[in-house]
């Protein structure tokens, strides 16, 4: 039981961590919130 719970929790945390730390993609992307971030402006 504990092994299953630990495994599921660890994998959930791992994939969410990967999402949070994924490199940003250049604009235009799918998300409105980062439209003003300089790091995501259109590539020249």
């Amino acid at each position: 039981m504990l092994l299953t719970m630990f495994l599921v929790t660890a994998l959930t945390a791992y994939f969410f961590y990967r999402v949070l730390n994924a490199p940003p993609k250049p604009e235009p992307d799918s998300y409105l919130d980062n439209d003003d971030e300089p790091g995501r402006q259109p590539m020249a």
Partner: protein
Amino acid sequence: MSANKESWGSRVGLILAMAGNAVGLGNFLRFPVQAVQNGGGAFILPYLVCFLVMGIPLLWIEWSMGRFGGRYGNHSTPYIVDTMGKHRLWKYIGVFGIWTNIAVAAYYCYIESWTLSYVVHSILGTFNGMDQEGVAAFFNTYVSIGESTLGIPLEAVVFYVLCLLLNTWILSQGLAGGVERVAKVGMPLLILFGMFLAYKGFTITAGEAGAINDSSVGLNFLWTPDYTQLWSPTVWLAAAGQIFFTLSVGMGTIHCYASYVRSKDDIALNAMSAGWMNEFVEVVLGASILIPISIGYLGIDRVTELVQSGGLGLAFKTLPFLFTQWGEVLGAIAGVMWFGLLFFAGITSSLAMGTPWMGFLQDEFNWKRKSAAWSFGLIVLILGMPTVLFFHYGVFDEYDYWAGTVSLVIFALFESILFAWIFGIDKGWREIMSGSDIKVPNIYKFIIKFVTPLLLLWVFIGSLVTPKGGDWGAALSGNWELDDSSIIKKLMNSSLHRQLAEATDPAVIAHLEDTLFFVNASRILLVAVFLGIAALVYIAYKKRVREGKI
């Protein structure tokens, strides 16, 4: 030009909305009951295997189908599948992806409204001083509509309409401003409430506050593996079914949400993150609340008896009584958390159910977002009122069975064949990998092409001709008598006809005859809605031809 200008606010918001779509009442009410009925800890093995070879592939299939369709301005399944398969019938298969959502929302919002009402009752202390029979009787009175417990006439109807209004209003605020905002608040709160209740589930001590068992008794009951059941097809069928319902695959909601993602943005990692978040809520939180707390206070025998009628009974007729054992204040807090958690689980799913219909109207008929949202609310209200008014006559169960169970398997089977065999696995694989932030193992190419469709076919056939008592051994040796739960027997109303033949009490006979009438009427209504949506798809097709889009 389409009026559809929706966008997601952020990647985390999209993942929380997707996870919220998947996390539903079933995570807390269906999973633990399925586990208890199918070998306890041994159930988890087929469950996780089905997650890996059916759940995850279906998530990738649906995310990539949605994103592919979105590239061509399609945000609902009829024209998403139409862009992938050139046969003109595909768009009518896609009708399932709108119809299922409308029909499921009709009864799902009713359960959601119970949770809202029970939050209010928990705050007001309605359940204080009631015994378990009293709490169960309260629920029966509530769904009977006849009497009010708050002094509000037609209380259940009022809460249902309130719940629908809330859903509709949030939908009218759009994806980023409505759906995503609710997910960003609802999902963290749901996890927080779940963790508190799971902690309580883990720390029950026999002799304290009326408990008769330590929490370990309930947890052992749920998790101790019965390995003799591991090779039972019934257990594997139950595990595959649970994976289906818990991930909200085969509904059309994932396609719709993903259709607002651009093709260079990731879907593979997003799908994994949302999928595993759902598993965390189900396996870690869902398994630690309902059964351990119930067994702690009622014992194994009583709970075994209660789970036969499903998780809804335990959730609404039993837990409110058990919470009062923790004292008035903590009982009220636990009640608010439990029903609040169920409410957030419900609303994040029911909001998703509104988006395919709205996307369809916006894409095909240039409806504005607000009009599309209110039309959804109105249709769900009309279709849902029979489930509220005739709850005791099987209407609710009919909607749940045909729209919330059978339809999912049929649509998922079709879409897996479309994706892997008609669109083509090579193109499909490129779609999954486009913009991906993770490397998807190549083995999944094989799994998506062969294993997932075959598993889905097996689930469908297994449900169509389920042998009596789930005895596959007897069935395969020649004695294939159908179980009443099989699709064929359900279609023939075999169980109801047998009950009618055996009944002698005139009141029971009258009730069963009414039930038979309402069951058949519900089916006609559901078929009429399906045909109505199919007609709209046809009109949209003609419009596209006129406008030179096809």
